[in-house]
């Protein structure tokens, strides 16, 4: 009899009906309850730290890409460690998938079983995120699950590094292990790891990370059993139920206090330039994905997030599974609103996420998810809506402009020791921190999905690949401009230093488009790009002790690193499929900054000059965006000249600005003539044919009747 499958069904109905769970034990003895709660949190944190300390991979040890959680028997997380918070939804989704697919009957659940999942459609972001799931039994009864997840930097995908940007379908994403039973009695099946070793470029990362995860899950399992010995099984079960409800209550109570009720909009874009010649893509179709968020906040603090009209999935690597999209929104709500509550699956009951099926945010079985960046981009921009909601209630110490998305550089080939290597580095994942109404964004801050992400020491990574860093710097003008400016991400310059041939390297991540929303009149952060210089004179520069390129430089039209090295310059988009490089080739990578807050002409001129002195901003931007005048010798602000310049710049705005109604007339003429470039036209028609929401928004805005159905082709069809 499938007891847990039935319980899961009942629970789903209760959640849909927003049915509360009675709180009993917490009221009876709050101290006992709190102690037990913190012991559970301690257990999962202990599991994570153990795995991190014994892992041999830089991803886990150096970058901190792992997370552990304790679940109830139906896959709801009751205690979660720090780490990749994205997976609060995904590991539970995997447990629930097993219940939905009759695993209780076959293969059944037994003490010591090791289940394994890295299939993102079941639960997760991409095949690089690999979860070990173990049932916990107490006196013969399944009472909980423990999950440990690490990010692996090689999965046998179409490119090395575990997150192939060039993936066009699921079958390019690497080896999938869809909730398989891969071990018994707390021991992996040896043949499973033989398969992993044979199917990926460098099996040591996968196998050693698996051992680290298993050590962590066994530790949590043993600790949980010990705790049940002390507090009793009935109390443990009740504690789990009440923790979930406390998670929901604390989340909803917080939102009710700090977020103003109403409707908020933030449409997000993500460009996929597959037709760019540098990408040599076998399906060279360009995409510009649209994720049009509408957030509704109710009087009781319940939040609804709706993406009706979202773009279809496509032949690129930036699709996202539903569990990944949900996980993204959970961590965003957790970090930006629910951060002082009880964090577990209960939080997810305080909001509803509506994502259209078969969309780029819930992409289904066939599509590649290795980079999953549309979902990341959507939650980065989601912060823009939350910023308005906070501002209205007066809690201006909270609330942010759009956050920065991020990137990661990867490479593979034969290393300096003659071994096959596959490495992903995270210095591009530590992007610009968010900007608030009170503070500039922090440079090189974190990655939203894992607030503990660490870019790691170059020297550690240099032991694992034949590439060396020539420089890691804060990108000048890398954040959005505003009264408070955005945080900038890093710009790194690498060289293929060792005596190796054919190093394959690419970058998943940020877009060329300018999409990281500014707020309240601030500009979005600039677009991203990558470069390489091949056939260089690097060796000559070293031998003659001439200056080497260490930083990008402050003039985007004349980059310093491109001036210092001679060779063939190659330009790539912000997310790039891998290319082949040889010894002494130079690679350059950038990642996202966050949006600015407020009108740049309101920025304190002294803050602009302070940024200028330390190369956080350029002379061009200081003069032409911020309207600041200073004495170049003393670096002192000329207040009178600044005020005059800013007054002139405001006059120029009034001169060039068009009254909105006139602007709309001009735009409407373009709409009726179908005068829209091909990629946006395709994006619109896709949305129009999938949902009435965006179509009706167009009709209403431009005063079009129902006969207008989209941008028609010569046959009168609306096609994308």
């Amino acid at each position: 009899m499938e007891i847990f499958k039935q319980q899961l069904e009942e629970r789903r109905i209760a959640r849909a009906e927003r049915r509360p769970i009675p709180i009993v034990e917490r009221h009876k003895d709050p101290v006992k309850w709190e102690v037990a709660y913190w012991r559970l949190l301690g257990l999962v944190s202990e599991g994570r730290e153990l795995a991190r300390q014994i892992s041999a991979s830089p991803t886990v040890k150096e970058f901190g890409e792992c997370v552990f959680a304790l679940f109830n028997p139906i896959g709801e997380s009751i205690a979660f460690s720090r780490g990749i918070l994205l997976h609060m939804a995904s590991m539970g989704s995997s447990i629930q998938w097993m219940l939905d697919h009759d695993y209780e009957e076959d293969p059944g659940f037994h003490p010591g079983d090791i289940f394994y999942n890295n299939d993102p459609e079941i639960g997760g972001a991409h095949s690089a995120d690999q979860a070990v799931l173990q049932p916990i039994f107490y006196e013969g009864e399944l009472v909980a699950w423990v999950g440990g997840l690490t990010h692996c930097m090689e999965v046998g995908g179409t490119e090395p590094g575990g997150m192939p940007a060039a993936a066009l379908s699921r079958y390019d994403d690497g080896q999938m292990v869809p909730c398989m039973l891969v071990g018994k009695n707390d021991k992996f099946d040896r043949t499973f790891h033989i398969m992993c070793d044979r199917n990926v470029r460098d099996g040591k990362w996968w196998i050693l990370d698996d051992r680290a995860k298993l050590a962590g899950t066994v530790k949590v399992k043993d600790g949980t059993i010990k705790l049940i010995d002390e507090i009793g099984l009935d109390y443990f079960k009740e504690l789990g139920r009440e923790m979930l409800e406390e998670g929901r209550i604390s989340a909803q109570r917080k939102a009710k206090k700090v977020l103003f009720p109403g409707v908020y909009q933030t449409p997000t874009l993500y460009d996929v330039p597959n037709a760019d010649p540098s990408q040599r893509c076998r399906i060279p179709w360009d995409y510009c994905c649209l994720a049009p968020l509408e957030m509704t906040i109710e009087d009781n603090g319940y939040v609804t997030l709706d993406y009706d009209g979202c773009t279809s999935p496509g032949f690129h690597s930036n699709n996202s599974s539903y569990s990944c999209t949900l996980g993204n929104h959970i961590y965003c709500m957790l970090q930006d609103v629910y951060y002082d509550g009880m964090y577990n699956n209960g939080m997810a009951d305080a909001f509803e996420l509506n994502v259209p099926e078969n969309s780029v945010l819930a992409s289904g079985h066939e599509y590649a998810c290795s980079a999953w960046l549309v979902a990341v981009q959507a939650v980065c921009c989601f912060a823009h809506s939350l910023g308005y909601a906070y501002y209205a209630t007066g809690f201006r110490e909270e609330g942010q402009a759009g956050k920065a998305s991020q990137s990661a550089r990867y490479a593979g080939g034969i290393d300096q020791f003659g071994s096959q290597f596959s490495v992903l580095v995270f210095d591009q994942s530590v992007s610009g921190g968010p900007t608030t109404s009170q503070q500039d964004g922090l440079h090189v801050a974190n990655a939203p999905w894992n607030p503990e992400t660490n870019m790691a020491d170059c020297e550690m990574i240099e032991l694992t690949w034949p590439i060396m860093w020539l420089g890691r710097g804060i990108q000048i003008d890398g954040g959005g401009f505003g009264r408070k400016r955005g945080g900038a991400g890093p710009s790194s310059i690498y060289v293929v230093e060792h005596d190796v041939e054919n190093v394959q390297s690419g970058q998943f991540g940020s877009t060329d488009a300018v999409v990281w929303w500014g707020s309240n009149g601030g500009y979005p952060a600039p677009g991203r790009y990558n470069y390489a210089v091949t056939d260089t004179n690097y060796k000559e520069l070293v031998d003659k002790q001439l200056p080497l390129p260490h930083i990008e430089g402050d003039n985007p039209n004349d980059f310093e690193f491109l001036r210092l090295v001679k060779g063939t310059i190659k330009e790539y988009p912000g997310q790039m499929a891998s290319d082949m490089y040889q010894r002494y080739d130079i690679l350059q990578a950038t990642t996202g900054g966050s949006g600015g807050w407020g009108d740049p002409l309101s920025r304190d001129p002294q803050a602009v000059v302070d940024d200028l002195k330390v190369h956080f901003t350029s002379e061009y931007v200081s003069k032409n965006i911020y309207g600041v005048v200073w004495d170049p010798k003393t670096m002192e602000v000329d207040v009178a000249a600044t005020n005059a310049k800013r007054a002139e710049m405001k006059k120029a705005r009034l001169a060039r600005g068009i009254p909105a109604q006139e602007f709309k007339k001009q735009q409407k003429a373009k709409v009726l003539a179908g005068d829209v470039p091909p990629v946006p036209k395709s994006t619109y028609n896709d949305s129009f044919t999938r949902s009435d929401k965006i179509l009706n928004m167009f009709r209403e805005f431009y005063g079009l009747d129902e006969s207008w159905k989209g941008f028609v082709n010569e046959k009168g069809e609306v096609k994308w």
Partner: protein
Amino acid sequence: MLKGKWKDEILDELIRGNLESNALLELQRAAKEDDRFDRILEREQKRVPWDDKIVLCLQENLYIVEKNGRKIVKCICGHEFGDYKVNWKENALVYERDTEEKLEEIYQGRRKPDNKWQVIREFYCPSCAVMLDVEPVLPLYPFVFAFQPDFEAWERRRKTIK
């Protein structure tokens, strides 16, 4: 009820958007008070150069005020944008950066987006020329209605809190 926690000077600095780091951290760490909304409105009312009653701070430089029994959007400079249920952008000045040259003025070199994929749209107050919003959107995308407050829901909420 948690009330009167912060001095007026702290809230005034918060409104100016320049709260010093340690004070900011203190506000972020503290339990959120129940009277923040009313106190911010009170302090804002003293700051603005006009007398219409502020009922909501919509965003930096924009307020919803009560005037002749209607709720309208008003700039700090006094410019009135009309009914709050209509997107204030419908009555703003618009400047769209839809060419390489216009985009290059803000985002130089490869930092600028491809104008065949997206545009940058700036909205200014027609009176004081303050920049009120910047939209990174697809060409022809309708104006984004960033925030439509629900005052009825807000009143219901306040009753339950009181």
